[in-house]
């Protein structure tokens, strides 16, 4: 079948139609199908992301439950250690506490003064402070101070004696002058 001869008018129409077709395709892919596909792809990515988060969250919940069981000892121990020190500024409660402690061991005139305080370098102890105290016992006998130090070390686990100075009193040889430097670890409140 031979193609019919086209008139000029028909050729023009065909040319315009071809241009219109190309324009239509452009509009179709750019403004309709393109955004639709993009939004679908974005949604698929979001679904994947959410799904992985959901899967991870299940693991996270399981981990929290098992960790809660495992950490029971640690949390109890932590609570016990926290409870060792009362609320408030240590300078307010530590010296009276030490004075009472030594008074209970027949060592009077115990004086505790704060030497310095510093934060710990370890990140896990960032919530705790190290206070260094000078404890002066002007008159104590060796047996009493030995007993008192033993009890202090056993009842105050967060207290560490870093320096000890025992000197005989020339006027009363049965007594000694004792100086202790003690570092106590106290939670920041």
């Amino acid at each position, binding site marked *: 079948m031979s*193609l*019919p001869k*086209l008139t000029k008018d*028909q050729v023009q*129409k*065909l040319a315009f*139609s071809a241009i219109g*077709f190309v324009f*239509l395709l452009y509009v*179709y892919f750019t403004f309709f199908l393109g955004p*639709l*596909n993009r*939004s*679908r792809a974005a*949604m*698929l990515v*979001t*679904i994947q992301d*959410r*799904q992985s*988060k*959901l899967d991870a*969250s299940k693991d*996270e*919940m399981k*981990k*929290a439950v098992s*960790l*809660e069981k495992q*950490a029971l000892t*640690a*949390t109890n*121990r*932590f609570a016990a*250690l926290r409870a060792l020190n009362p609320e408030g500024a240590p300078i307010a409660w530590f010296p009276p506490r030490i004075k009472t402690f030594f008074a209970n061991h027949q060592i009077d005139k115990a004086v505790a003064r704060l030497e310095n305080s510093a934060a710990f370098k370890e990140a*896990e*102890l960032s919530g*705790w402070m190290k206070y260094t105290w000078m404890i002066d016992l002007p008159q104590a*006998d*060796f*047996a009493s101070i*030995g*007993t008192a*130090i*033993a*009890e202090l*070390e*056993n009842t105050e*686990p*967060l207290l*560490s*004696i*870093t*320096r*000890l*100075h*025992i*000197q*005989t009193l020339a006027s009363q040889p049965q007594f000694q002058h004792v100086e202790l430097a003690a570092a106590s*670890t106290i939670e920041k409140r």
Partner: protein
Amino acid sequence: MALHLNLLHEEILEQRQRQRDPLKIGMMVLAGFGALLFLYYMFCAYRTLEIKSRLSAIERNWTKIEPEVTAAQKRVAELEGVIKTTRSLDDYIENRFFWAPFLQRVSHCVPPNTQLINLEASVLDENKGISVSLEGVAAGREPRSVAEDLRQMLIEQLGHAYNGVKVEFKTLEDLDTIVNVGGTNMPMAHYLLGINLHPGPMAKSAASPTPDHTRKQ
């Protein structure tokens, strides 16, 4: 045979030409292609809507779970922090040097004819050990040997509990003073002992015992 006369020849030809009009055919093809594109678009839109509904279901699920997950994550971080802090505090507690057992051992070493005048002790930085300085006087026929006995006793007693025990005289000198011990006049010597030691496993783990009532001489 019947004779057929086509009197509408021109009209029929014209009609056929109209039917074969390329513009018309092109328009029909275009319309068909457009319909196909539309159908494909509809298919894609349907799939997108389906995915959107899936996404919103997951989003709803996530919104419901998210506070619990956040709380769980927070709790995990908190618990891990508690565990690490407790471990560090336990290390701190276990690495303390207990002075009471040390004083007890020193008091056991001091014989009746020596007297300690001064005891100065400190924990060296970064767990490098313990440094102790003991000052005292010893009396006896041979006061220097009494002081030496004390040094030997300290090495023996402290060596049972601590590592790397070193006991050395910093000073040991005779004194002019004579002291009466048990009714006998005896010369005296002044000594200064330097003790260095490292807390051994026994000293680290053992809690301070209550010392007996051995008095300092």
